[in-house]
């Protein structure tokens, strides 16, 4: 499912398993997608669909219980999963960076936020101590943190959730990465702050010609901002398409139902059609298509492995034997 030419990030057939007490969770299975230079790609899915795990695997910060069982992550052609630890670290923060969800917990509670930015700057640039401090203040100003000199010495617990998220973003862009992963950057903030934070990220991406992987459970939020959208369901990538095309003509039954179940400003309650069934338990035996038992189009041929991947129109991929 890739249009590899000139792609910045290529994730191909990535599979991840988690060991838990209740058995092995096949959290991600053969996920593939690409992110082009300066392109914004949205990743959408319900909780447990594997979107955050994918982001962590790309950054190389997967939880210790998780294990990549197959596939590759290539950045500018280099296979990140095959690199040694030291080389791998060279990419983090400098070539690609991530803004985590729940920013307050993602910042060191007992280190001033300004110092945390400087840690990244000192690591990835040739700046000296005082130059790094100046640069950190610039970054704070850029992410619209009021009174940078004062907040430079503040600790995360002294800042509001919105401010913490801004610090997190400043931290992510400090090393001028080519790719920014934003994992639910606005979740947990109030509506107005959400909006401001997302707009800030967009501006920064645009200014620095940064590619972006925007992860969210909110289809509307992603659709509005992304050039292309990757839809995930229960550890599978089920559809990839340019935003406009995806919203106008979804081809995977899940995407269509997800669109129909998400309220938008003009929808009425009767328009919201629930998706039958629930996300399958990823510890159990699963059919090739994990949407099989929720799908109204399911047919016996859907039980034949493997999960298909069809490029149904140029740039529009769908993992379904009976697409709409």
């Amino acid at each position, binding site marked *: 499912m890739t249009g590899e030419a000139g792609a910045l990030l290529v994730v191909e057939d990535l599979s991840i398993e988690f060991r838990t007490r209740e058995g092995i969770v096949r959290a991600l299975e053969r996920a593939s997608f690409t992110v082009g230079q300066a392109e914004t790609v949205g990743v959408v899915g319900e909780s447990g669909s594997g979107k955050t795990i994918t982001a962590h695997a790309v950054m190389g910060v997967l939880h210790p219980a998780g294990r990549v069982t197959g596939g590759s992550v290539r950045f500018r052609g280099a296979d990140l999963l095959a690199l040694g630890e030291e080389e791998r670290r060279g990419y983090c923060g400098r070539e690609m960076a991530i803004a985590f969800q729940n920013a307050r917990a993602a910042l060191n509670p007992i280190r001033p936020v300004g110092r945390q930015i400087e840690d990244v700057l000192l690591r990835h640039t040739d700046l000296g101590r005082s130059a790094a401090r100046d640069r950190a203040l610039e970054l704070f100003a850029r992410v619209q943190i009021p009174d940078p000199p004062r907040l430079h010495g503040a600790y995360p617990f002294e800042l509001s959730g919105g401010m913490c998220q801004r610090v997190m973003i400043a931290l992510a862009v400090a090393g001028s990465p080519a790719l920014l992963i934003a994992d639910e950057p606005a979740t947990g903030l109030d*509506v107005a702050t959400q909006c401001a934070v997302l707009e800030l990220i967009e501006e920064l991406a645009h200014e620095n010609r940064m590619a972006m992987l925007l992860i969210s459970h909110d289809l509307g939020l992603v659709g509005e901002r992304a050039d292309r959208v990757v839809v995930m369901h229960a550890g599978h990538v089920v559809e990839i398409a340019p935003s406009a095309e995806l919203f106008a003509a979804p081809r995977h039954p899940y995407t269509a139902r997800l669109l129909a179940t998400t309220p938008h400003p003009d929808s009425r309650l009767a328009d919201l059609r629930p998706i039958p069934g629930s996300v399958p338990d990823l510890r159990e035996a699963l059919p090739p298509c994990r949407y099989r038992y929720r799908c109204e189009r399911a047919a016996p041929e859907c039980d034949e492995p493997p999960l298909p991947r069809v490029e149904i129109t140029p740039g529009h991929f769908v993992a379904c034997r009976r697409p709409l």
Partner: protein
Amino acid sequence: MSGPLLAVREARKRFPVRGTRRWVHAVDGVNFTIEAGECLGLVGESGCGKSTLVRLVARLLEPTAGQILLDGQEIGSVPVTEFARGPLRAAIQMVFQDPADSLNPRFTAFDTIADPLARLGGVKDRRTQAERVAAVADLVRLPDELLGRLPHQLSGGQQQRVGIARAIALSPKLLILDEPTSALDVSVQAVILHLLVELRERLGMTYLFVSHDLNLVRLISDRVLVMYSGVIVESGPAGEVFTHPYHPYTRALISAIPVADPGGRRERIRLIGEPQSPVDPRPTVCRFYGRCPERFDRCLREMPALRAMGTSHEVACHRYEGGSR
């Protein structure tokens, strides 16, 4: 019976800030009514006091001041523990935000639903209990075989069905829905919303629907209250507030709703500054002053009161002096 089902008059709730002599003014002089059979939406961001307000109405908290009248009868002055034993306890029930947190981890679904029946409904006989629980479970479409399970053995949607079943087991007059879907995935959210609407029609209940998501409130409410920092800043029919919002805060909220259409983005209203602390706010300053892009000096001198903007639409903002824009 005439008059509203519920009337709240000048309700206030203050909490002391630990280790200081200062107070959080969580709810600061709120007035509203709910007619029988209506669904009233309450919108506001987290920390605006809407949780406190509904807990006052549900009689889980003692108000610092003000009246709460149910069917014309003052219940706000009845101490919480006494109210819990009174005959009106069954009349106001609540569905909680986080279904996992609102179910006792050691109670099966059956025990959870049977609890209010036994305590308030006087249904102590095991067989009658089983019948009544089965009937309620059927109403919320909770399969019988799930009744013996513990909360952690249920999915989020199933947990919330148990929570709803418990709340409607005694057919309350007023059902408070405190963000009933915000902890659920969108696919489950739609199911629960449909269920709630259907139950209201079948049982003739009155809803107070709380959410931070104006778009969601619009879908199932008849009227909407918009709350900011302990006060109500706008109220009116859901459709009208959504299409013709007056207060800058309401307009910002609506403009922030994603439209999901890549081409058609709306003009965003940018709020300035940071939310203000609800600790001892100055009584003469508009609560929204710090974030308002349209503020002027009068907002600093005088706290605006709710003013009628037409038949049933009200707004608290100095910009709309004299009932027009």
